[in-house]
């Protein structure tokens, strides 16, 4: 039989890559899927000699299979997978920062990232500050002599504010030793090639679109810098933040439908965003694909799609907005995003609850803001669900 072990990834389309990245088969059985190496340890050939895997806290073949799949999407030689997205960010910080270093963060950013700096890294004398990433002059001015890392999210959670990755990379790289990391969770490398745009590190919460089925918690980092990759693996082994074999295996199965899912997430989100914007009950919709979105041109420049995430405010009080969420039957009120099921949250009481109210409002994360992760349901059913929820909360009259 022909040797099918090596297909050059560069010649294949994304939909194919997502399925055919890993051909490092277990040659014993020719199993079509990579086996779940649910093992803690490996037998040594002779004392001290292994086949590259010693202990699953350091590395595991099933985790490595997922790393190959993600690296194919990222266009890097390898990737490093973690127990969670926060495991990825914290390992990155502990791998490259030391006491006295400064980190510049997007002002609108996932609440868990804020908490990591406020509650944990702050205790280790790591300085951090926030900047409006839509204002490039402000970004340039915010870099300090001790800045070591610029960590941004684009589109930002939950306001969808964008950061110009290419321009911020140029600003960061004017300084020696400043690395740019981008949390690419909302779009994935399929819709936004942040490494190609100049970022040093691409970070993903694989819990979201990469898995896509709400089955696992996971994270990944990818970089072209081989020395940094080795450093990340060493610190991961030291901290014990590596992904588990079963989670990696489930994520590998999820990533196969990523291209098929993403296309529909974008399509459905576009339909829902336009419907919401045209509805008199809705005050404002934040979705990069809308003409009303102030940074639509930037989205068109650096993204290959507008994504499946949006946020909106109703012409209503906070209390009514929360009742609206409760009245939905099809859209599920749950944290997380990027899954086949449509998920809806109130960031002020969920993902961003640790940020003081005044600070939140200044950033556009108002108490009544609603975040929506559009799933794969037929959008007509989602719209019907919104209509019945409006009816329940506001009655028939518009």
């Amino acid at each position, binding site marked *: 039989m022909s040797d099918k072990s090596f297909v050059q990834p560069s010649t294949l389309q994304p939909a194919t890559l997502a399925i055919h990245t890993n051909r490092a088969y277990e040659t014993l059985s020719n199993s079509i899927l990579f086996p779940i190496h649910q093992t803690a340890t490996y037998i040594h050939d002779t004392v001290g000699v292994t086949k590259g895997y010693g202990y699953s806290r350091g590395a595991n073949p099933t985790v490595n299979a997922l790393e190959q799949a993600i690296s194919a999407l990222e266009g890097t030689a390898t990737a490093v997978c973690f127990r969670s997205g926060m495991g990825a960010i914290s390992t990155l910080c502990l791998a490259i920062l030391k006491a006295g270093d400064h980190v510049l963060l997007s002002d609108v950013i996932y609440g868990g990232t804020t908490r990591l700096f406020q509650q944990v890294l702050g205790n280790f004398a790591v300085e951090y500050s926030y900047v409006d990433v839509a204002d490039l002059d402000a970004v340039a001015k915010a870099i300090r002599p001790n800045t070591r890392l610029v960590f941004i999210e684009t589109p930002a959670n939950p306001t969808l504010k964008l950061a110009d990755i290419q321009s911020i990379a140029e600003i960061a790289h004017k300084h020696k030793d400043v690395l740019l990391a981008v949390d690419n969770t909302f779009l994935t490398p399929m819709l936004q090639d942040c490494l190609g745009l100049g970022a040093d590190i691409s970070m993903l919460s694989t819990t979201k679109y990469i898995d896509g*089925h*709400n089955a696992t918690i996971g994270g990944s980092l990818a970089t072209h810098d081989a020395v940094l990759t080795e450093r990340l693996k060493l610190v991961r082994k030291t901290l014990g933040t590596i992904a588990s074999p079963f989670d990696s295996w489930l994520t590998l199965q999820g990533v196969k439908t990523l291209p098929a899912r993403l296309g529909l997430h974008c399509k459905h989100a576009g339909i829902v965003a336009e419907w919401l914007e045209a509805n008199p009950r809705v005050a404002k919709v934040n979705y990069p694909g809308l003409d009303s979105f102030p940074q639509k041109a930037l989205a068109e420049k650096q993204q290959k799609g507008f994504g499946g995430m949006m946020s909106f405010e109703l012409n209503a009080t906070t209390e009514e907005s929360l009742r609206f969420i409760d009245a939905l039957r099809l859209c*599920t009120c749950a944290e997380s995003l990027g899954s086949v*099921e449509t998920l809806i949250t109130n960031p002020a009481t969920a993902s961003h609850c640790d940020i003081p109210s005044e600070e939140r409002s200044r950033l556009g994360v108002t108490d009544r803001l609603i975040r929506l992760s559009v799933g*794969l349901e037929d959008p007509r059913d989602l719209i019907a669900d919104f209509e019945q929820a409006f009816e329940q909360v506001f009655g028939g009259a518009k």
Partner: protein
Amino acid sequence: MKFASRLVHFDSSPGDPLRPMATPIYQTATFEQEHADSFGQYDYSRSGNPTRRVLEDQVATLENGTRGFAFSSGMAAIANVTHLLKAGDEILADWDLYGGTARLFGRVLPRSGVTVRYVDASDQGKVEEQVTPATRMIYVESPTNPMLRIVDLKATAEIAKRHGLLFCVDNSTMSPYLQNPLDLGADIALHSATKFLCGHSDVTGGVVVVKDAKLADEIYYLQNAEGSALGPFDCYLLLRGLKTLKIRMDVQQRNAIRIADFLSSQPGVSEVFYPGSERHVGHSIHQAQARGGGAVLSFTAVSAALAKSIAENSELFRISVSFGSVNSTISIPLKMSHASVPTEILTTRSIPESLLRLSIGIEDADDLIEDLSRCLHG
């Protein structure tokens, strides 16, 4: 609710106070009893398991039936329904059946005194003609495997009804997304869930769906008595795979249409069998009873040697039995999926040695066509 929404919106954890989004895997053999002489809803996982129950209810809903049953394989599902019969009973089956089914019918059922007679079920007149007083069941696939022949399910259901027979349809090549045999009058719809329902090649399983409550009770009795139900972890994986059934099949079918067109224009190809093609025999019947041509097709190469070389030189089509997965596969039915067909039947079935069966995945169609093109042109 539309089909796409039904796939992802169902009660995934009935009664669970924690309300997890994904169905919990109840990987347990037994359940504690509250009293020595009474049982709760579940007692022993062979008889019932909460993870399996969610799956069985979901497939019943998707096939527009009332009760579903999950089995450890498609063959276990088929064996279950044949055990509804007794010695002296007879099954009237279409001659073009999956090899494993032909093996069960030809080598196993005769031991218990159940006989199987074959008929060309695409010819309604012949079916009616072949019914005898001993006939209890009509059994067909449509489209068939591997020739993709079409059987008129509604007309066959009417014959079955006239003679008081059970009509059983293996719907594996279509899935409930594209065809619902129960709506067309069948009594039993069954699937190898290993195929499109799962879609990721990670589960071997089968499902049976019926509408009639009495028939459901009999099938349940056998499922429990024979211990052929699907395990909890496999049920969990199947529930997970099912969520993307529509989006997978939409892409697979779109790719299949392009590949069928491509193959039709190739000098190395003699004939293409694809139900979605207007030239396909039975196309109009298929269009009336199904919602698409699906993603399984077969074709004959100009020589058996060329067929073998295509299978072995393709890079993206992996040589593999089974079909319906996200990745494309290629097989030579005569040597693979249908090698188990008893020889006396094989000679009458005349599956050409040059026949290749393709199951089209969700790769980019350009990559697949390029791969086939390279194989066809050396």
